[in-house]
């Protein structure tokens, strides 16, 4: 498995698409968490509102700021990473090249998952690190105090962010294994994240079954986990439909289910 992991890391490290996804994640997190609020602070016409906006960008809030976008846009990017990594192996025919080298299919698969887990962790840590840098820069420029959250809270934030993005990433990978390609999984995944989940959220206050369904959706549970870490409910995708513990457990269950379904598909089907 380790040999497969190192081969995957070599591919991911050299893959332009992986770097583009990291760059887009960083840019979007900076724009929505810091640039837009800071511009709002500079142009606010009342002092209280300006103060409130400025406080939201301070280091003490960098955990919810960093993971605020994970249920939606970063989730969609993580799903794309999973779908691109696995789907392109079918598109280029490289899966068959890999499969007749030496390792067993499950060994290759485990290496791929481990490499994706490391890549997702790198994305999460980069978003947190850049968020910390930007918030400290804003605080310094405004001569505000720098009250950082405790390290345990930061670790919890990183772990939760990794869990959310990993769940989306393995969903993308699973769809790529099932559809043996890249385009359809990305399309379906993004429609699910941005469309279906939002429609159920809209229907939830109106219909009982939609409310029950909503509490089981991956995106809603991702949003609830962010909320449990201090994310504001005014952030798109963030909600308090369930508590943080349940949200984490549901996300783990989804991730495990996606991993097992993909493993079954890879093990059972012919590689053509």
């Amino acid at each position: 498995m380790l040999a497969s992991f190192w081969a995957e890391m070599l591919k991911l490290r050299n893959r332009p698409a992986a770097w583009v996804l990291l760059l887009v994640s960083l840019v979007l997190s900076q724009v929505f968490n810091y640039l837009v609020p800071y511009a709002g602070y500079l142009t606010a016409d009342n002092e209280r509102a300006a103060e409130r906006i400025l406080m939201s960008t301070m280091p003490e809030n960098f955990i919810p700021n960093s993971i605020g976008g994970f249920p939606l846009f970063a989730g969609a990017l993580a799903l794309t990473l999973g779908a691109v990594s696995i789907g392109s192996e079918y598109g280029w025919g490289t899966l068959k090249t890999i499969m007749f080298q030496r390792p067993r299919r499950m060994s290759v698969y485990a290496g791929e998952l481990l490499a994706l887990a490391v890549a997702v962790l790198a994305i999460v840590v980069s978003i947190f690190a850049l968020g910390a840098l930007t918030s400290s820069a804003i605080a310094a420029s405004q001569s505000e105090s720098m009250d950082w959250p405790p390290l345990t809270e930061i670790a919890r934030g990183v772990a939760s962010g990794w869990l959310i993005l990993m769940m989306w990433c393995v969903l993308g990978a699973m769809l790529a294994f099932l559809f043996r390609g890249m385009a359809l999984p990305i399309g379906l995944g993004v429609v699910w994240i941005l469309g279906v989940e939002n429609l159920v959220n809209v229907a939830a206050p109106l219909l009982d079954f939609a409310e029950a369904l909503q509490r089981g959706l991956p995106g809603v549970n991702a949003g609830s986990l962010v909320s449990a870490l201090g994310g504001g409910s005014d952030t798109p995708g963030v909600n308090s439909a369930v508590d943080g513990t349940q949200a984490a457990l549901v996300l783990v269950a989804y991730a495990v289910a996606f991993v097992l379904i993909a493993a079954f598909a890879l093990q059972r089907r012919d590689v053509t």
Partner: protein
Amino acid sequence: MGGKDVLVETRDLTKRYGTRIVAVDRVSLTVRRGEVYGFLGPNGAGKTTTMRMLLGLIRPTSGAASVLGRAPGHPESLARVGALVEAPALYPYLSGLDNLRVIARYAGVPEGRIAAALEKVGLTDRSRDRFATYSLGMKQRLGIAAALLKDPELLILDEPTNGLDPAGMVDIRDLIRSLGSGERTVLLSSHMLGEVEQICDRVGVISRGRLIAESTVEELRGKGALLVVAKPLEHARQRAEQLLGAERVEVHDRTLRLDADPATAGQINRELVGAGIEVAELRPMERTLEEAFLAMTDQKGESNVG
């Protein structure tokens, strides 16, 4: 299945897709150590499906196969097999060198072997260029380099000259010949008769999923025939029929065509001359593999080899 000198053996290997499509139909073949085995058949005959089954990529519907004494796809046999299936499938955004690094890691072989493999296929100078920028011939050569990384006992090459220009074909054939000249065993599929004739020691002919012949190139060609130009022609025909039987004598364009072993040419010449016939020309006519193939596939209602 198989003895020590049998590297690949299949018994009634069958692959069906649904109830109507039989891609491979009870194929039983044997590839022996050290030989270059040609797997010959028209496009769509079942060559690639068979090779994929031998590599463990697809599972047979029924029948059995053994590769290097193990079930297809077993890590211990794959460790000793190098393969190129259809077009070389590698990562377009990586350089040739990095592609081989990736393959070496999966295969569990030291990266120190990469330089020798690149040297063998003549790609050392372009190894740092992206795979996407390679010509088709270079891609094929890199695919062969990837197959050589494990220093394999058995090389499985599926249509390695497909899509190449004539010069590229010659390059790849020369390379395969050199690879198969030592202890290494090569299983080569092709729909090109000339290629198989030039490179292979033994041939398995597959048509519509069925193996219709398996033997050496010489055996497949058959013993050939003799062409005789003689006067008077009618007298020569009668004498030849007395010697060989009427069914083994034909007349085409005032030339006798005798279904006889070329080694008997001297004896036939003596008999004709002894009967007062003037023999102006007597020469062996060997069938090409193409003629043999067409004869075989005609019998099976198939003749569309490329």
